[in-house]
């Protein structure tokens, strides 16, 4: 059974939902406090959603310097899977484990609603149980979700197929609007060049139980629970 470290920062608020989703998928979650300096041998790391350090300065900017992040950097460099959800995505960008940045939503309002996304990469440790092109309906809940990057970075992300999730127009007749935050190229989630570090704005842990209306997010946790270290060969690259 895989060990999954769910890092808890001051201000994390999706940590318990994440732990429950990991557990339900058949992996062994463990909460790791951000002051800790190692990940206790975890196979997989998740940085959950929330508002670490109250989003002071910029979302994720201060959490990036938490002691545990050095261990996360090492884990990622060794090819270990790292998933950042919402605030976790923001932290991964601030830590330069993923390129770009997440800025204030174009409409300024905090957006909390279900959105439709398409899975464009199903060969990451977190999306392997989805079919390429599969559509999911997942909740978003963020004030700073507008992905932005330099033009050449965006071109690189597209050329290397590193967009993991993209907002799409809902199926015909649905009132849901695509792109809730004005992100570049409708990007909802990306991965690093090796494919082991993934950041997404939607919350799969909030769509993992029939009771809450959707189980579309379960695949992220089923994928990581099925992940086999020896089967994953990171693609060589700088970042």
């Amino acid at each position: 059974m895989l060990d999954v470290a769910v890092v808890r920062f001051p201000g994390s608020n999706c940590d318990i939902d994440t732990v429950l989703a990991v557990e339900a998928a058949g992996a062994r979650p463990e909460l790791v406090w951000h002051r800790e300096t190692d990940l206790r041998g975890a196979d997989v790391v998740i940085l959950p959603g929330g508002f670490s350090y109250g989003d002071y300065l910029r979302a994720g900017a201060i959490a990036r310097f938490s002691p545990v992040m050095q261990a996360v950097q090492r884990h990622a460099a060794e090819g270990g899977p790292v998933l950042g959800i919402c605030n976790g995505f923001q932290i991964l960008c601030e830590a330069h484990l993923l390129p770009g940045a997440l800025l204030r939503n174009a409409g300024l309002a905090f957006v909390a609603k279900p959105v439709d996304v398409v899975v464009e990469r199903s060969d990451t440790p977190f999306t392997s149980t989805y079919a390429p092109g599969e559509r999911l309906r997942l909740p978003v809940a963020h004030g700073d979700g507008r992905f932005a990057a330099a033009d050449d970075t965006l071109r690189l992300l597209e050329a290397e197929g590193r967009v993991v999730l993209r907002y799409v127009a809902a199926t015909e007749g649905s009132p849901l609007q695509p792109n809730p935050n004005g992100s570049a190229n409708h990007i909802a989630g990306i991965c690093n060049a090796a494919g082991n570090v993934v950041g997404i704005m939607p919350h799969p842990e909030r769509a993992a139980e029939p009771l809450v209306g959707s189980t579309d997010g379960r695949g992220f946790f089923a994928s990581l629970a099925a992940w086999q270290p020896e089967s994953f060969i990171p693609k060589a690259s700088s970042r």
Partner: protein
Amino acid sequence: MSYRVHVRVMPRSGLLDPQGQAVEHALGELGFPEAAGVRVGRAIELEVAAPSRAEAEARARLMCDKLLANPVTEDYLLEVEEP
């Protein structure tokens, strides 16, 4: 010596600044249609202990590069006061 440093962090020009747009719109509504090009950034002040003004500025610049500004989306201006 302790130098007071003023840092001004602004969203990079060319990037959408929805806060600036909202403020510009509000100014127009308030009877200031002449206000244009509004951008909203952040001001940070700090004391830097350093042997010289140049050294204080160099250290403050490093602080900006590492934490106070995001090099992907923001530009910053530094001003160092004489003690």
